[in-house]
């Protein structure tokens, strides 16, 4: 426990220096921050948008916003979490702008769906299966299952009810399970 706290402190000090540099518009600090987080953030944006070019645009907009608002970062979260929030919001904004977010009416008949991922399945294949889901339920699946947001947070970000968030997650799991079962059968 103590070790974890000390490590967190060290990370916070490094982050603080980076934040200070970015707030001064120090281009070296800005570049360092970008290269530190660009892969993780690009992956997040890409999975939500399912489009490389759109993910690039979103990452660009998000980092511009990060550098613009960096003075507002109070250190109440990790820098990565703060940047990720901006990236997720930018990606969702893009989805909404393109009117890609649709919510199918789903009767929640499914029981609790447990997805069993066989060990031989590669992460690339799993990602392809996730990306093949419809935009709406894929976004909810990613926010809840991959990014770790709660139903309440997801519902607020997408301006939907918690019930819709839950039913869309069930739907996403159901579809994902179907697609993974098909691939297992083929193998």
């Amino acid at each position, binding site marked *: 426990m103590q070790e974890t706290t000390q490590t967190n402190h060290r990370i916070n000090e490094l982050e603080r220096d980076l934040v200070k540099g970015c707030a001064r*518009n120090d281009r070296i600090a800005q570049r360092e921050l970008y290269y530190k987080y660009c*892969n993780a953030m690009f992956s997040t944006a890409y999975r939500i948008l399912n489009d490389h070019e759109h993910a690039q645009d979103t990452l660009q907009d998000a980092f511009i916003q990060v550098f*613009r608002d960096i003075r507002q970062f109070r250190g109440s979260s990790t820098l990565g979490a703060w940047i990720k929030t901006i990236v997720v919001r930018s990606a969702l904004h893009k989805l909404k702008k393109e009117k890609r977010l649709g919510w199918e009416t789903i009767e929640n008949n499914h029981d609790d769906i*447990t997805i069993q991922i066989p060990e031989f399945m590669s*992460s690339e294949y799993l990602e392809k299966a*996730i990306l093949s889901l419809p935009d709406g339920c894929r976004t909810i699946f990613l926010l809840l*299952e991959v990014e*770790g947001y*709660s139903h309440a947070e997801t519902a607020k970000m997408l301006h939907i009810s918690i019930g819709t968030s839950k039913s869309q997650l069930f739907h996403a799991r159901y579809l994902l399970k179907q697609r993974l079962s098909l691939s297992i059968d083929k193998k």
Partner: protein
Amino acid sequence: MKESGKNMWSDNLPLHSPPMDSWEKIEASLDKELAGDRYHQQLDGLPEHKPPISLWSLIEEQLTRRRNLRIGYFTASIAATLLLAFILHGLLIPEGRKNVTSVSTVTLKMKKNVTIRKISKDDGGIEYSIVKKNFSKHQNSQVITVNTINAGITMNSEFFPTARKFIHISKLMMKPVTPGNAIASTVLPVVSTANVSQSYDNSDTLRTRLLTGYADNTAPPSPPLPKIVYPSKGFSFGLDYLPEPISNPEKGTSLYQSFGLLAQYQAPAIEIRSGIGISYYSIPADFSAKYFSFSNTASGYDTIVNNGDTICGLIDGIGGINIYGREESRFLNYSLGAGKRIFTNKKLSATFQVGAGFSLLLSKSNNLQGSTYDALRNKANTYINNIESNIPEINRSRFNLLTGFDFDYLLLRKWSISLEPTLKYYLDPIYKGRNTKSFSTGLRTGILFKL
């Protein structure tokens, strides 16, 4: 725990066996949990993607462009202010002071009390005049009175042959302080002056008639009374306050309050106004917290989430947390407007105003007021690593068009109060991606001091 065989209850009660499939159920449940763990491990290990290398150079370019744009905005606003100050400065200087020139006077002819003079001005203007002085002494009071009549023509070189005729009549009264030659001190002000083109009567009708050419038995018309107009030409400074109810994204309407400094130039028909100030917008907001648990073992901390306290340890861990408070934003405002006066009387004036302005976000802060949380997950040592508002991002810069009816009421000779119902149209919404109402109404109040 008692030793076995000595508990009469356990020894005497019958033994029961669980159903035959109980192990299978436990095994299935364990399998399910194992599958769930594997599922989350697999999701955590999704492949990482890399953006193209050229993306950083694009971001860098945009950052430079943004900086230049910001400098451009700043320079433009300074330039607009200076331009306004320059225009007002030009309008403010009284006409008589615009061209300060030195003069040289030459006496052409002098005979008794009559002098003919030529005055040459530096700007090329020439003035010819005849000055006649008349002295009289009162026998009892010893007061010496000097009546002066100065008549002539003045020609402006720039607009020649435009010339202006004039007659100045003055009365100077002096009283000797001591008997003898010492004459000083009691100098009464000039009685009056007038242009010959205007009708004039200073009660010395004989002299006036003589000068203006009226016949002895003809009374000259009275001089026109000056028209009392408010507000007269001038420059004012003041303070103003404008509250505008603006829809917030979550909970109805909140007041967007602006406090500012005002500079205003007013002429009989027009009004030009420039203002700079600060706006404050505070809205109720819910905040979401992100957290993770270090371990499954309890540490026994109590948890209080207050303003700025983001770390907590819990016995049970938290499943959901709701933090409430206010999101507070501050803006810098600048506005420039012009107005047409549509009504005036001695005390009150009404002006129709139009203008434009912009506001820049100075700072935004979260004022956390309290929190509620549920202990749902059986995990302890929960660390809250992020608290943030669920309100959408605020637009950093917003432009607006403004119109209103400004009512000014003169309280004292130099002080007036101003009341103006306003209608604003915001070209950008206050929140990004939100179709909040573009129009807003407000009532501006202000107090002005006339220079």
